[in-house]
């Protein structure tokens, strides 16, 4: 195909994908049904890969589809399906509007060593059982964090202004939602990446995708041998260089009439830019392309050496990390939480932290805000991976939303009835902090909120009742901790189960029959 229609198709498709994914992460009203997430996220490479390889979900074949797509068509994924890539195209466009100079890309040499090096670290650490580098570099998750950390508060702000105006007219279809920031430390990585990616995209097009992104590099190996590719028409090309100027990947060497297919993201801007119809996208022609097969590549050697060093180092890092985080607080602190609490469906802390790329989809989807990005609760490498934060909310008894949306298999689907029996932690009562003990007045907020009555009230002094906990029926939902009014330390808190357990069913005795006459 030589038509510039390709570029327009790409643009329209990409904008739709971008809007869809932005909505996925900004949807604070939970408009999207639980069933919508699976199909939408199916083709996201890293989540699909993790779910298949680590969580062992055989149906998670989206990444294979992407690999096949790349073998056939090149890095179509990067321009059509990757929300982070599309976002960068948008930023580049703005950059081009701000400064005409930023619109002219021109050929640049690839940062091959760096690319391979980063892919090597990511793959190496993953091979050793750590998802930590992917957490930071997965483009889908990076995009998710941009939306959650930065776009959603803006959306909420606009929503709340609208809600205030409409409220004056008694219209409540749009309602206010309080903006609740996360812990400040959790913002460091998303903010740094927003700055880095924003800056690179603003000025250099797809430089991030072709230097840092491990998915881009990996797909680049396959796109080099793809069946369909961008190519020059020797007869028509006048070497005007427009194609190279329009190439966001800076991968067109028009003087040599070659395209670096490992970096080409199939945006089709070059085809559109060529006045002579000298560029096209089509089936590969079996002809040796000049300069495409270098005999030795010094950067490749550097990459291999570098990766080996890093894999060795990475293994130490992971060993130091351990399979479960070590207790973060010593016993002198009142809320002596030994373990953080991982969400229901995650089976346990180690399983969860080895699968989660901190895309924050669950953080958004959670209707009670109990899922919050962690800082150091899972250990340093687990930064941003969500934990159950019972000061922000508590886990709704009948809700399985997070288990329905997670694309990586870090939180596996749970039926509601199974979820109600999954003990993610156990409540611990600190009598010394309790209002009933310190103030000698009634309270019981904890027991009030408890869905299983694992936290129940027993006689204390005089008429007063004080909480007591039945461990075996506690599911660790944290309603008690959330409701507990004491500060700065709560009188009741949930200590995580490193490996989730099964809770027992609460027992119920027969009640006396209802009175047949008024007792007054």
């Amino acid at each position, binding site marked *: 195909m030589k038509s510039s229609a390709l570029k327009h198709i790409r643009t329209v498709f990409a904008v739709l994908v971008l809007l869809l994914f932005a909505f996925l992460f900004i949807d604070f*009203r*939970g408009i999207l049904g639980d069933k919508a997430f699976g199909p939408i996220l199916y083709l996201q490479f890293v989540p699909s890969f993790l779910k298949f390889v680590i969580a062992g979900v055989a149906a998670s074949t989206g990444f294979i589809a992407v690999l096949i797509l790349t073998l056939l068509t090149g890095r179509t994924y990067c321009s059509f399906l990757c929300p982070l890539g599309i976002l960068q195209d948008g930023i580049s466009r703005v950059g081009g509007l701000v400064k005409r100079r930023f619109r002219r890309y021109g050929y640049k040499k690839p940062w091959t060593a760096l690319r391979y090096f980063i892919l090597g670290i990511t793959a190496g650490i993953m091979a050793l059982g750590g998802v930590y580098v992917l957490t930071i570099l997965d483009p889908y998750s990076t995009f998710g964090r941009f939306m959650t950390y930065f776009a959603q508060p803006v959306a909420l702000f606009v929503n*709340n202004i609208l809600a*205030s105006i409409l409220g004056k007219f*008694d219209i*409540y279809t749009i*309602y*206010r*939602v*309080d903006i609740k920031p996360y812990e400040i430390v959790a913002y460091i990585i998303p903010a740094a990446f927003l700055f880095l990616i924003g800056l690179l995209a603003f000025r250099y097009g797809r430089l991030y995708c072709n230097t840092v992104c491990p998915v881009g590099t990996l797909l680049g190996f396959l796109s080099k041998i793809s069946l369909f590719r961008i190519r020059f028409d020797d007869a028509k090309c006048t070497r005007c260089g427009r194609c190279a100027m329009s190439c966001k990947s800076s991968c067109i060497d028009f003087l040599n009439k070659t395209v670096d297919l490992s970096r080409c993201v199939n945006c089709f801007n070059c085809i559109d830019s060529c006045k002579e119809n000298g560029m096209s996208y089509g089936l590969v022609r079996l002809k040796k392309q000049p300069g495409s097969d270098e005999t030795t590549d010094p950067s490749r050697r550097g990459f291999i050496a570098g990766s080996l060093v890093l894999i060795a180092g990475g293994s130490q890092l992971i060993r130091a990390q351990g399979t479960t985080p070590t207790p973060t607080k010593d016993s002198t602190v009142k809320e002596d939480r030994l373990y953080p609490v991982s969400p229901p469906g995650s089976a346990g802390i180690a399983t969860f932290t080895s699968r989660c790329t901190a895309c924050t989809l669950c953080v958004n989807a959670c*209707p*009670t805000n109990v899922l919050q990005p962690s800082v150091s609760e899972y250990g340093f490498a687990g930064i941003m991976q969500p934990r159950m934060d019972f000061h922000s909310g508590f886990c*709704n*008894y*009948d*809700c399985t939303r997070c288990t329905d949306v997670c694309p990586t298999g870090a939180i596996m689907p749970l039926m509601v009835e199974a979820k109600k029996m999954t003990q993610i932690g156990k409540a611990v009562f600190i009598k010394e902090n309790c*209002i009933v003990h310190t*103030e000698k*007045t*009634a*309270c*019981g*907020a904890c*027991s*009030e*909120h*408890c*869905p*299983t*009555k694992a936290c*129940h*009230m027993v006689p204390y002094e005089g*008429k007063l*009742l004080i909480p007591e906990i039945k461990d075996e029926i506690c599911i660790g939902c944290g309603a008690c901790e959330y*409701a507990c*009014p*004491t500060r700065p330390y709560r009188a009741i808190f949930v200590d995580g189960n490193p490996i989730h357990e099964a809770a027992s069913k*609460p027992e*119920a*005795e*027969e*009640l*006396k*029959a*209802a*009175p047949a006459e*008024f*007792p*007054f």
Partner: protein
Amino acid sequence: MKRRNFLRSSLGAGLAAGAFMSFSRYENALAGKPLPSAENYDLIAVMGGEPAAMFDMGIQSLGGMGTFVRKGQKVLVKPNIGWDVVPEKGANTNPALVKRIIEHCYRAGAKEVYVFDNTCDNWIKCYKNSGIEQAVKDAGGKIVPGNSESYYHEITIPNGKKLTKTKVHELVLESDVFINVPVLKNHSSAMMTGALKNMMGVIWDRGYWHRNNLNQCIADYALYSRKPSLHITDAYNVMMRNGPRGVSVADLSNMKSLLISTDWVAIDAAGAKMMGKEPSSIEHITLAAGMGIGKMDLASMNIHRLKM
């Protein structure tokens, strides 16, 4: 549109029902104007019917809804929608009752009827799964969010012992009429929840109450000038233990009852009795009675007992 449909259909239904009821003792129940009340009842207690029917019958003894709602007024109906559970679990006010009360308000000439609660569980799930959001819409009322602190404004309670200021929902401040519709339940904090305790759903910071002598705060709030003019306690399925959320339907006693009063201490005293507790054993009832908020001595009350 819904409201218009509602009015149209109610007109038809009204005509039919009117013909039937013209000889019955309920003839003025829906007339929307105050009836000459033979007696000044402290409490209306109805037993044996469905929630809506019991209300139709009971409100008549107080002269119908027109006693409380005048033409063109903004009405706030405050049920308990605290929990994300289905109506069968009895943790929230019965939606059929809420619907019926709103219909009575409109027939009495209310301009608009609003419903909200500051829920304990996620408010959207509570509104939906309690069945109350749908009931309100079906009756033509407006269900309003109570989930954001920005809806709440500070008020003062000059005579409060522990609670002298608190933030209340703007609807409490803006409405002409305030109708309190609690569900009767066992309660782990306050021992029992009814009319007085239901006010914890119109304020923002419940934690403050819990920290500062909960029962005294519940009683203190009842001193606030914008108080409900009518209390309707849903005692259809009464949660006898594991309240206020409940664990299972095994916690419920099917009392099929409804209490109506303008005195919230009296209605809570009766509620306590229904649950097999002495009113004097419920601290916030005794505190409120002691502060002159209402009467708790059931023996001295003029009670209208109705059986269906």
